[in-house]
């Protein structure tokens, strides 16, 4: 744990939603640097919406969001990325008529050093060798899992301070999921912070320092994974028999 006490990201009483429906009814959440925070919760209760709010894809109705000590409610998505807040969205949103490699390079759009970009590209290719095979293919033909790999790889290319991953393991083979989480673990050591939406209980307990339960548009419960496991009631409800 870092000594710095102010969290990297602070969310206070955030309200947001879509035209005609408010989905988040006052979210409170702190994220400290160099930790992995997992968001869990039933489907359709606002996890994705929260990430979209944080990256500025949907507007805040009321509340406060501070990133690295600065309020960011009013800034544009691209400015937040420049400040180091990176979002790997649900559904990938790849650039369909660009090759795999061009998509990955777009991830490093803000990096002006070609050598550095190249290094990051190689790192991603080591993590996902499959992508290296398909580097020249347009993304609209990729398989579901390959898309996810490009999405995550593109997010990692950005080298952000806080990386938000929305269901990174969705559609991926077990072996790949394992590798991804290993990689995340290593990256936290080098000072990166992750906010991960994840449904897979095994993976969560492996790496998350903090787990927050989003339900009904609020953070219903927050705590360490030990606390979660020691509360049979909660783990029964959200993890079923596991």
């Amino acid at each position, binding site marked *: 744990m870092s000594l710095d006490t102010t969290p990297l990201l602070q969310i206070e009483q955030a309200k947001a939603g879509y035209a005609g429906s408010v989905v988040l009814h006052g979210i409170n959440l702190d994220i400290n640097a160099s930790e992995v925070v997992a968001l869990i919760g039933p*489907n359709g209760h606002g996890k994705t919406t929260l990430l979209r709010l944080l990256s500025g894809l949907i507007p805040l109705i009321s509340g406060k969001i501070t990133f690295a000590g600065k309020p960011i409610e009013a800034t544009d998505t691209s400015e937040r990325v420049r400040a180091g807040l990176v979002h790997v969205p649900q559904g990938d949103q790849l650039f369909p008529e660009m090759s795999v490699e061009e998509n990955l390079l777009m991830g490093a759009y803000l990096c002006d050093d070609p050598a550095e970009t190249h290094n990051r590209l190689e790192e991603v290719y080591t993590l996902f060798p499959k992508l290296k095979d398909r580097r020249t293919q347009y993304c609209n033909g990729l398989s579901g899992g390959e898309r996810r790999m490009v999405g995550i790889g593109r997010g990692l290319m950005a080298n952000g301070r806080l990386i938000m991953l929305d269901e990174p393991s969705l559609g991926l083979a077990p072996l790949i999921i394992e590798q991804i989480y290993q990689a995340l673990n290593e990256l936290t050591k080098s000072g990166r912070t992750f906010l991960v939406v994840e449904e897979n209980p095994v993976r969560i307990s492996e790496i998350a320092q903090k787990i927050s339960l989003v339900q009904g548009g609020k953070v219903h419960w927050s705590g360490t994974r030990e606390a979660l496991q020691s509360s049979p009631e909660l783990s029964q409800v959200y993890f079923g028999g596991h």
Partner: protein
Amino acid sequence: MSFLICTSATATFGSLVAVDHIDLIIERHSVVGIGGPNGAGKTTFLDLISGLVPLREGGIELDGVVLDGMPAHKRARLGVARTFQLNAGFDSMTVYENVLTAVVFGNQTASRRKPLWSRADHHRTCAYLEEFGLTEKTDVEVSRLAALDRKKLMVVTALASDPKVLLLDEPVGGLTPTEIDEFADLIIRLKEQGHTIVFIEHVMSFLTKVADRAVIMHHGSLIFDGVPSEIAHNETVAEVYLGSAAAQMRGDLS
């Protein structure tokens, strides 16, 4: 009782052979789970059966009818129903209209020449919505649905066309453990009703729970075909696909 027969089925994209001479026979009333690394060609295989990707070589036969060269919509009416990995739906239409469309166009008995749909179609649609707990969402535009409901909707629309074989592409990807259990129960119920189901899934707990036969693909070919409990014991599968999860599964099973 071979029902769905694929002989030497092959699909290519440029120089890539996505499905490589697959021979597979699926029996009536069976539930087959397909697994395999990403990009192995699983989805493409289902695309071949449902007619979205043309066969490069080989043949496919369902219940004695040769499907080769038949357009997708005809296969759908013959009883090939499927769901999609990326949660496809008619986004600007309501849940009701989505199901109604499947009811009205999806099966051979549909009254295709009439300008309006029948009362029976309406009742069937409502019954399906009721059965899958979507009644509340009847008038919601599909683009506003959350993932679970979209998944359910796809299954409902697939079922609405009275399918002979149900092809599901990652039915539980992205669901929470409790939701997965719910879905497993649903599939088991369908199995009991006598449906033939082929599904793709990376969530092994689900696959082993509902399938009576597991098939693992790699580089467009089959590398495993057997009972689900055996997957974890196959070395190649463990190496290319499962990783440390294999050990865990073996642990779970013992």
